[in-house]
């Protein structure tokens, strides 16, 4: 069998047979405990700065963020954004319980359907599962109430995210999913698909020059719900420059 031939060739190269049981158990233990490696210090910050770092990084990657106090503020914020971008007030929405809870009746002009996205949809409203401050990255695991196509087929993706779901490094996001994820198929925690999204789609294939809006969304807008009192900007004090990155801020346009 091909599999045995490949494994046999690997073992010949390693000058050993199949691993003895005790070593297999050791490696199995490494898989089960999945030890963390060095985590960059940049996201180890007090909560308000961690959220500010997230916003800074999203904007650096050409995404936009609007902070809103609660779910009830979403309809007004969304219709304002769509109008400002000259976008229609129709959108496709993830059938997620949290998004359904939004008091949509307050903006009767907003029209939406709850389903997967199709090639003709222009705007989507997606549910943000969590986000990583380290690089301004959204974590969007697939689920019946969080279809993947909403991240891909539209020109403009709007994501509703709770500030309490912003973590520092990716490793913390994995731990959230490990604790909460329940996959019916495998019995594990991984859904079919997890997209980590950092800014809108882009390409630099033409003369290594960056252009936004390749095959995925041209705009990525985040409606950030300030549900975490510990994460609110502190008083009137100006928000400290969101990151302490030695070497200065990234070059414009990078």
């Amino acid at each position: 069998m091909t599999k045995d031939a490949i494994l046999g060739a690997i073992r010949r190269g390693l000058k050993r047979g199949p691993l003895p049981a005790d070593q297999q158990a050791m490696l199995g233990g490494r898989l089960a405990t999945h030890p963390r490696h060095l985590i960059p210090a940049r996201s180890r910050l007090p909560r308000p700065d961690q959220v500010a770092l997230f916003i800074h990084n999203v904007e650096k990657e050409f995404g936009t963020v609007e902070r809103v106090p609660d779910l009830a503020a979403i309809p007004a914020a969304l219709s304002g954004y769509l109008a400002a971008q000259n976008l229609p007030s129709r959108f496709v929405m993830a059938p997620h319980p949290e998004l359904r809870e939004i008091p949509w009746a307050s903006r009767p002009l907003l029209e939406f359907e709850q389903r997967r996205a199709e090639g003709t949809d222009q705007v989507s409203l997606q549910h943000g599962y969590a986000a990583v401050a380290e690089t301004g990255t959204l974590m969007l695991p697939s689920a019946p109430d969080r279809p993947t196509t909403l991240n891909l087929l539209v020109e403009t993706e709007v994501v509703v995210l709770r500030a309490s779901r912003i973590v520092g490094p990716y490793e913390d996001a994995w731990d959230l999913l490990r604790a909460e994820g329940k996959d019916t198929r495998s019995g594990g925690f991984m859904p079919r698909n997890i997209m980590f999204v950092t800014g809108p789609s882009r390409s630099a294939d033409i003369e290594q020059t960056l252009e936004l809006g390749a095959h995925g969304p041209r705009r990525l807008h985040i409606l950030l719900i300030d549900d975490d009192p510990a994460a609110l900007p502190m008083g009137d004090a100006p928000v400290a420059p969101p990151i302490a990155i030695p070497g200065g801020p990234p070059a414009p346009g990078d």
Partner: protein
Amino acid sequence: MHVTSPAFKENSARALANPGLQKALGTAKGAFLQRRATAVANLPEFEQLRNIGRDIKNHTLANLDFYLEAFEAKVLAAGGKVHWCSTPDDARAVVLEICKAAGARTVTKGKSMISEELGINHHLEAHGIQPVETDLGEYILQLRGEAPSHIIAPAFHLNREDWEADFRRLHTDLPADRIFHERRDILAEARTRLRERFLAADVGITGANFLIAETGSSVIVTNEGNGDLTQTLPRVHIALASIEKVVPTLEDATSLLRLLARSATGQDFSVYTTFSTGARRDADLDGPQDYHVVLVDGGRSNMIGTEFQEMLRCIRCAACMNHCPVYGAVGGHAYGWVYPGPMGSVLTPSLVGIDKTGLLPNASTFCGRCEAVCPVKIPLPKMMRHWREREFERHLTPAAARTNLALWAWVAKRPALYRLATRAASGVLGLFGRRKGVFRSMPLAGGWTAGRDLPVPEGGTFMARYAETQRRR
């Protein structure tokens, strides 16, 4: 893919004489270097992460059999299938079979170097199935019938004029006199064109940057979103991956991802980093019904236990070629197979044989920049040297080179004569070239100087200067 590496010299000569290519190389090179340098400077832990990346890969390779089997078990548990393939032939047959079983007419493809290695497109076409490359760079190359010239920027060798001309020539249903005001207009045309293809495809084929043993996931990293459309919309998703792509856990992959985008494009993180685990779940509204991983050996297992094992740590970031003076002068096509630049000069001989590719490990100035930037610290120059030694041992080195080396050795073993000869050579060269600092051409060495400048020796031989400093102490 057909190997043209034996013609490296002729390929390079043609590349150096190609003004379009030289222009493209000139535009692109600086951008890559500067973006990477900025990203690295903004992450103080980068050096430590390189050691971690190296160690994760070494640990995995030392237990590769275990992790591949663990990966397979998890894919099965998530409702996917794993196909083990020893040779490119095996892999092509498996892919074709899956496409046929799905009744596929068109297949969309994300960018995948292993698919270039296997020649998947050709094979599908020969069997009446239309493959469509969806990465913007790969798309235009497919229109042009060309191979990629760079592992992350496949159309590295093209200028904007080439894009416009090709789109006009091939998108004939659009008005011939349309104007491309900006690069954005070229992008928009490709987007519209490919959108129809994404929606119509029956099967989507992607590569994989990593496979994860802990969860049975395949990971792809893109900026355009084409890979995600490819693996989300069709009924069947095939992930093509070579065996060394597996890593143990999500934490291991995460550490390597911190290195990958910074080393490749100078981004902190790519726009889309996606983990796929099995097929659509019962209640899901989208995603493929079938998920296949085609695991390809293709000569890699033979590298394990040899002095080339470390090459299997490669995460295909392209930093080595972006920083290589030889790649920067001749571009990717000259190397004659899928993988160009320093990593190609080591990997290609391992996968297709040193007999056809002996010139590649010789195409190096040994400046060492590739090793200095490699995120997983692969000792590329050392391995090129290993290939040179093997080539010499197997008498594959050209006769003229062997004679000259023998002559040099004869002189070098006689110190008085060696000193005399080098002093004379340095003096003569210095006399003729002092004014300009470099020789652009050289009698009897026209072939060598056609693509290189020879620096003029300044201030005596090494041995004379060494003796001088010793005296001063």
